[in-house]
């Protein structure tokens, strides 16, 4: 059967979300997918557009990657505007060609409304919607002193902030008598105005602009209907948005009276093969100018295209919570009390600058809406009351009173029903979160990764954390950061104590900073901290009892109590002679032999007492310990690189060996894996590693905090085109920063997800040295490299240490009685218990 064609017009936030949903659904297999985007960039996070002025790049804001589109087999046409649709032939036109579709999705978003004022097309009259718009504003701000935003709504105030951040004197001109007329009432608007003026933004309300002419002291002059005027160097129009429905209009689809492509509950337009989602769509006479409803439409449409007619779009909550120029503003539901019989409760503290209004139903039982200015700490609770129709307490005013005046504490996560929506961007309910936890997520990071909650606008972060903490606690998971009952500190805090006080033994640490005798949680954690700080042999007498058996015996215990042996094979490169030695040793001790995923050889089935003998032989042949047992560097996987591969641009094996030799033996909160690929074909799968290095024509690209295993995470691109030395210095810093700040058993991926400030913050610390610790981190790493010793070499040479490897101290010839073996595929393996 030949595939049908699905075309998506518009590669914005909602269009992209639709693709993510649709490509993961069964119906994706039936369609060839083509996407047209008018903008030249891949879909990016418009909600956080303003961060572009704060230093974020398109890459930081991007919602997906080109690789993802390639993997999904999507034909992506960026910088190509669709200019017409012929619904009869089911084709559409672009300046580059004509394309046939079977199903068409319009996700064209909206465009900024520019009021019809004479002179509005002069240079330096701009809008605020796309990255290109922001580039234009930045360019125009060169040599400018003042800037005016026309429109005092949500976006206008955000634009004013942006002008301020560009160093301009910022003004806001609003036609209505107050700011944010849609979301706020008179008192709230007045307070917001006051606060914003305090921040140095000048607000002009009830001003209608009649014309824009050439200025005398500045580039432009705005003339108002009351005869007054304002001079400015640039103007940003932010007077509302209009649905981008031009294509639909021209092709005769049904359009709303005031614009917008009319859709039904399944996001289908008046033509059954044409669908519309996002800000361009009009549902029951309503346009939704927020991203969350657009995402819901995207999900609904994806379900519909999969034949699911039960999922329907049924409107969306338009509540908003934001920080505008640092001022908290919140608006929930029926903020203007338009429901018949609605009553108001207001709290206004002009001194503190807090305004709160609750709109409640006639019977006083439910919350219909609310307005908050100056302090959003009540927002989450109020929103939950409103969204879930939770019955209000007897004295509802306590919900907005300060606690000192008898205010009620915030609504605990326990009070929320299972159906309560926690994250509206990704439609995650409390029930979904509980489900994720029951399925094994045991911290905030993993719940986020599993449910996507709080990865959209971020507005639900605090609420999500509360729900997760409370649910974990209910399931008996210790949420406190305390390491265990013996230490009231996190791993990071203990690290600090050890380092600062020069503590060298567990005894000293627990007697000075803990209580009791320790346990299998804190002992290995402290052992790893001590090893990182002082790098002493892990079998030094004081450290032995602290280690996990794998660390104590420097081998991995298997299910029948025997061990496996993994010698280091840096970069996976091994001489035939060494390979022969491995074979000979395996044969002599009848060890089950297997090649690992990390490009080395694993020898299974050695008893405790055989370990030192075997290692003696391996060491004599030039092998070193592979630390397969430790929370430390495992392998640096590599492809064969430019020495053999015809595509390679750098020597990936050489670099892998260099990295492996440098970081081997370093003790970390958890194991660390690395890989090096010799070109972008990425044969070493470096992007699934904690540290992934990919060769470029000019050097190396470094990716960090990836993970394979149980919870895969694509590594983040951290730095590009590094020289050998730069690469090593950068890895030194990231590794040591991880070692110092991560929690016990926290892989780099989870560490990154929980790191406040995330990738950007890490870049600042490492690349810009914002904490001023770069040199210290490097020095620390250098010290560890300098004191490296092969633990097995030290152990086999020391008779005292070898004593530990006796199976039974009083019966050297007694072998372990339960170890039964059988032979399978020519090798020995333990007999499996018939369970």
């Amino acid at each position: 059967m030949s595939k049908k064609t699905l075309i998506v017009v518009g590669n914005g936030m909602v269009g992209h979300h639709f693709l993510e949903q649709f490509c993961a659904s069964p119906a994706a297999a039936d369609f060839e997918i083509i996407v047209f985007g008018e903008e030249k960039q891949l879909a990016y996070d418009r909600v956080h557009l303003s961060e572009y002025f704060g230093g974020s790049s398109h890459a930081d804001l991007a919602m997906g990657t080109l690789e993802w589109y390639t993997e999904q087999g999507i034909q992506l046409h960026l910088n190509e505007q669709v200019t017409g649709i012929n619904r009869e032939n089911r084709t559409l036109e672009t300046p580059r060609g004509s394309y046939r579709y079977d199903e068409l999705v319009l996700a064209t978003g909206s465009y900024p409304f520019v009021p019809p004022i004479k002179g509005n097309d002069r240079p330096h009259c701009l809008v605020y919607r796309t990255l290109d718009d922001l580039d234009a504003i930045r360019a125009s701000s060169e040599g400018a002193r003042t800037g005016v935003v026309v429109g005092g709504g949500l976006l206008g105030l955000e634009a004013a902030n942006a002008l301020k951040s560009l160093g301009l004197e910022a003004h806001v001109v609003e036609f209505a008598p107050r700011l944010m007329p849609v979301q706020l009432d008179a008192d709230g608007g007045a307070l917001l105005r006051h606060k914003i003026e305090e921040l140095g933004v000048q607000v002009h309300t009830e001003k209608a602009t009649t014309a824009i002419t050439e200025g005398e002291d500045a580039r432009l002059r705005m003339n108002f209907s009351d005869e007054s005027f304002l001079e400015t160097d640039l103007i940003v129009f932010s007077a509302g948005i209009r649905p981008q429905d031009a294509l639909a209009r021209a092709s005769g689809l049904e359009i709303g009276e005031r614009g917008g492509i009319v859709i039904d509950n399944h996001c289908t337009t008046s033509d059954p093969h044409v669908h519309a989602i996002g800000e361009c769509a009009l549902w029951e006479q309503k346009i939704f100018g927020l991203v969350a409803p657009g995402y819901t439409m995207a999900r609904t449409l994806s379900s519909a295209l999969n034949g699911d007619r039960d999922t329907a779009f049924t409107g969306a909550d338009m509540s908003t919570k934001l920080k505008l120029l640092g001022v908290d503003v919140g608006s929930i539901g029926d903020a203007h009390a338009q429901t018949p019989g609605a009553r108001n409760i207001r709290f206004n503290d002009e001194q503190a600058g807090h305004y709160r209004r609750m709109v409640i139903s006639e019977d006083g039982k439910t919350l219909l809406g609310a307005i908050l200015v100056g302090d959003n700490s009540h927002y989450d609770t109020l929103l939950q009351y409103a969204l879930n129709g939770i019955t209000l307490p007897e004295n509802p005013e306590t919900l907005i009173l300060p606690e000192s005046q008898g205010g009620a504490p915030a609504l605990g996560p326990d009070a929320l029903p299972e159906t309560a929506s926690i994250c509206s961007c990704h439609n995650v309910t409390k029930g979904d979160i509980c489900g994720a936890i029951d399925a094994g997520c045991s911290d905030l990071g993993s719940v986020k990764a599993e449910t996507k909650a709080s990865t959209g606008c971020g507005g639900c972060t605090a609420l999500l954390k509360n729900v997760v903490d409370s649910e974990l606690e209910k399931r008996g998971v210790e949420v406190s950061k305390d390491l265990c009952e013996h230490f009231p500190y996190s791993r990071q805090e203990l690290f600090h104590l050890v380092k600062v006080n020069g503590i060298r033994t567990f005894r000293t640490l627990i007697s000075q900073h803990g209580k009791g005798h320790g346990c299998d949680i804190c002992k290995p954690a402290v052992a790893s901290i001590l090893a990182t700080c002082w790098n002493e042999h892990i079998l030094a007498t004081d450290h032995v009892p602290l280690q996990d058996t794998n660390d104590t015996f420097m081998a991995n215990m298997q299910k029948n109590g025997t061990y496996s042996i993994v010698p280091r094979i840096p970069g996976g490169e091994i001489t035939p002679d060494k390979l022969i030695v491995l074979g000979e040793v395996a044969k002599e001790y009848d060890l089950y032999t297997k090649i690992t995923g990390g490009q080395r050889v694993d020898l299974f089935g050695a008893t405790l007492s055989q370990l030192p003998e075997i290692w003696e032989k391996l060491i004599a042949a030039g092998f070193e310990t592979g630390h397969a047992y430790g929370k430390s560097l495992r392998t640096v996987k590599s492809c064969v690189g430019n020495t053999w591969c015809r595509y390679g641009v750098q020597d990936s094996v050489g670099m892998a060996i260099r990295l492996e030799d440098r970081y081997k033996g370093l003790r970390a909160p958890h194991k660390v894996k690395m890989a090096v690929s010799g070109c972008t074909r990425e044969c070493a799968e470096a992007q699934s590693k904690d540290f992934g290095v990919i060769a470029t024509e000019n050097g190396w690209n470094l990716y960090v905090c990836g993970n394979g295993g149980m919870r895969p995470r694509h590594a983040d691109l951290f730095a590009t085109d590094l020289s050998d030395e730069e690469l090593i210095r950068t890895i030194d810093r990231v590794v040591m920063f991880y070692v110092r700040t991560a929690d016990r058993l926290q892989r780099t991926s989870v560490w990154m997800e929980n790191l406040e400030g995330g990738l950007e913050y890490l870049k600042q610390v490492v690349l810009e040295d914002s904490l001023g610790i770069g040199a210290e981190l490097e020095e620390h790493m250098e010290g560890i490299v300098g004191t490296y010793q092969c633990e097995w070499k030290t152990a086999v040479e020391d008779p005292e240490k070898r004593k530990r490897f006796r199976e039974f101290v009083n019966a050297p010839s007694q072998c372990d009685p339960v170890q039964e073996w059988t032979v399978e595929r020519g090798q020995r393996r333990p007999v499996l218990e018939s369970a």
Partner: protein
Amino acid sequence: MKPRTRWEAVCTVDDLVPESGIAVWTEEGPVAVFYLPHRLPALFAISHTDPFSGANVLARGITGDLKGEPVVASPLYKQHFSLLTGVCLEDDTVRVKTYPVLLDGNQIRLEVRANQRESIAA
């Protein structure tokens, strides 16, 4: 009637590892002996066999205390066993055998069941 027992010498003080365990072979099979110098008494002996896996590994677990109770954690699946009673803290229907242990000069002795021959001889 209490079965006949005897105090079997299993090792010397030098064989012990402070804060940790060692395994010894006795007439009753493998036993783990732990030496926790910061407690009184300081010596504990329990079966070396992990009841959850059947492997002889308990002496290689990490020792410590939970709510004051001295314990060892199985190195395989991490359950904790009380060194005083042998009861598994995670599942109190599971329990490993404990052995009375004493220090006799330089010798560590365990009280084990006397075997047939010896009980006749005694």
